[in-house]
């Protein structure tokens, strides 16, 4: 029985990130680059929104560290992601390109997740094992359990990772998913990105507990709390969860304490319900400068390298923006397509048979 809650301290336990993580310096810089790219795309989306070029933005700023660290322990192509609307960094980590993300932001025909049918930040990518997400929160926890069940029954090594905010964890579906995953010891991880708010509803009105991870004990799985500004702490927690999952030891509940640096979305004015102190405290917990300083201090990121990343990000963001803005809208004639399966060119309706269980 697990009742213990492991906490990975926010303070890097070692001055040497390479030694601490076992990841080579280049990989660490790559993680930083991914975070910077996510931030760059996100900031651009706000500019596009404020200048009236996109209707809506829901932001991942403040969540990049947790996602980049978590995803560094996953294997794209093998593992499954069940994202939510703050999963921009995870999308990049799993192979989505800046252009694809901007196509999604603009709702263009070539948006890989929905062809412009879903709101911005409603991700999906069959080519990347990123399952299609909806707006109703928490539902994906059950989909992750089902994906993990299929992997387990077929004896395939895969980990299914459901990502969501702390508010979503109070939904009944999450309880039912954790209960089922615990019973069958499924290769699944629930990643809760706890930013202390559900839109305007503060933590103390969302639950009576400080740490959601304590709930893991109620499903006989480990609950792990990590500081979302400690990118490598997130990585280490996930590395352990992944090895448990692949060893058949079952699911893990990881709670990353993060901060929401923007309003809930472009429709929200958070100064209406958050104090200046609260906002300032949040800005102080930005994972991007934190990780940059960590790499700098360890001599893994010099001025030149950082400048190169900044320049590359700007270039990628510009390119993605121009590409997506110029891209074609969906054909209105497709409005009622794909409500049901459509026969392929061979007139075949059925997907190729998957390997069986029996």
């Amino acid at each position, binding site marked *: 029985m697990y009742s213990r809650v492991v906490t990975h301290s926010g303070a890097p336990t070692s001055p040497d990130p390479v030694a601490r993580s076992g990841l080579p310096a280049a990989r660490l810089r790559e993680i930083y680059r991914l975070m910077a790219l996510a931030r760059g795309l996100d900031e651009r989306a706000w500019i596009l929104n404020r200048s009236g070029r996109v209707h809506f933005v829901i932001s991942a700023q403040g969540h990049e560290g947790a996602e980049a660290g978590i995803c560094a322990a996953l294997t794209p192509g093998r593992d499954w992601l069940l994202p939510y609307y703050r999963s921009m960094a995870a999308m990049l980590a799993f192979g989505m390109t800046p252009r694809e993300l901007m196509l999604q932001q603009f709702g263009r*025909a070539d948006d890989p997740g929905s062809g412009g049918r879903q709101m911005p930040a409603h991700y999906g990518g069959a080519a990347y094992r990123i399952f299609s997400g909806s707006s109703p929160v928490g539902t994906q926890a059950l989909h992750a359990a089902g994906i993990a069940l299929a992997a387990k029954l077929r004896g395939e090594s895969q980990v299914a990772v459901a990502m969501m905010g702390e508010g979503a964890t109070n939904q009944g579906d999450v309880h039912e998913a954790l209960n089922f995953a615990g019973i069958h010891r499924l290769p699944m991880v629930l990643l809760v990105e706890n930013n202390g708010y559900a839109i305007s509803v503060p933590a103390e009105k969302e639950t009576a507990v400080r740490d959601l991870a304590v709930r893991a004990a109620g499903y006989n799985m480990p609950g792990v709390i990590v500081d979302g500004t400690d990118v490598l702490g997130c990585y280490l927690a996930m590395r352990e969860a992944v090895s448990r999952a692949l060893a058949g030891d079952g699911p893990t509940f990881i709670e990353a304490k993060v901060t929401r640096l923007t309003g809930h979305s472009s429709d929200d004015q958070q100064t209406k319900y958050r104090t200046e102190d609260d906002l300032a405290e949040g800005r102080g917990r930005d994972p991007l400068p934190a990780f940059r300083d960590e790499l700098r201090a360890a001599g893994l990121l010099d001025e030149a390298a950082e400048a190169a990343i900044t320049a590359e990000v700007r270039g990628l963001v510009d390119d993605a923006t121009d590409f997506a803005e110029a891209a074609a809208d969906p054909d209105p004639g497709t409005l009622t397509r794909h409500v049901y399966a459509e026969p392929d060119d061979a007139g075949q309706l059925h997907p190729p048979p998957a390997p069986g269980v029996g």
Partner: protein
Amino acid sequence: MAIHTFIEAIREGLRDEMRRDGAVIVLGEDVGKKGGVFFATDGLWAEFGDDRVIDTPLTESMIAGVSIGAAANGLRPVAEIQFADFIFPAMNQIIQEAARIRYRSNGTFGCAITIRAPFGAGVHGGLYHSQSVEAFFAHVPGLKVVIPSTPYDAKGLLRSAIRDPDPVIFLEHKKLYRSVRGEVPDGEYTVPLGRATVNREGSRVTVVTYGLMVHHALNAAERVAGEGIETEVVDLRTIRPLDAATVLASVRKTGKCLVVHEDNRFGGFGAEIAALVAEEAFDYLDGPVTRLAGPESPAAPYSSVLEEAFLITPEKIAAAIRTLAAY
């Protein structure tokens, strides 16, 4: 009389009922300090405080279920579901519990709750912030389903809903919130549940609709009036219980009935109106009861191009009126 937007009328209705009856509470996601994502509850928390304006966790089944219990113990809860699209986790509490408590207890318990929810497309909400959900509730005995179209009705019907001893699903087309203004008396008044109204008299065709579509229908009626087609527009206001008498009286007069709603057509609420008219006004019909409804897609897609293709417009309604009139 003051001129108010639709959302102001809703807010006033809530405020006035809370002032009138200390048992009325408001609960839902972000209804407190933030005042709701559409600001329907703006100012209520400041006036009535934490006890009567409750920011709930992000759990719709809880919002409905706690409302049911609170009502059983004497409160008059008014719950807000942030978007109608998110009411589905509460389906079991609303349909199996709220709607059936009076019946299953043989009248010994009631369920005096009101559940407000913004619905409908046209605001770039995509597949999950644009849905119409009235058909699911209109089918359920024990529920009342209200869909106002004007600020006056919104306030008057909301008051009646809150005072009603039975569970009321109160659906507000979000496109109306700021786009529609109208006269709203400051004093006490109510609009009774279960009564339709004829918003425009006409002799050739009856259009039966509700919510935002009432405005589109009136607009369409104007367009075809120039062509000599006099259209009568019936605003149902409450779709359960239905004011069948008003609908039938109008169709018996015009002999032609067009039913309009934004929700998809198959199995939608319009089918009930069409079936009613086809059965009860058969001998009066000079043309087929016709339905103009949203396409058979799960909801309005996000892309403006697709959303526009999805929406019911005055032009589409006018075209349908012409076809029916020419029959």
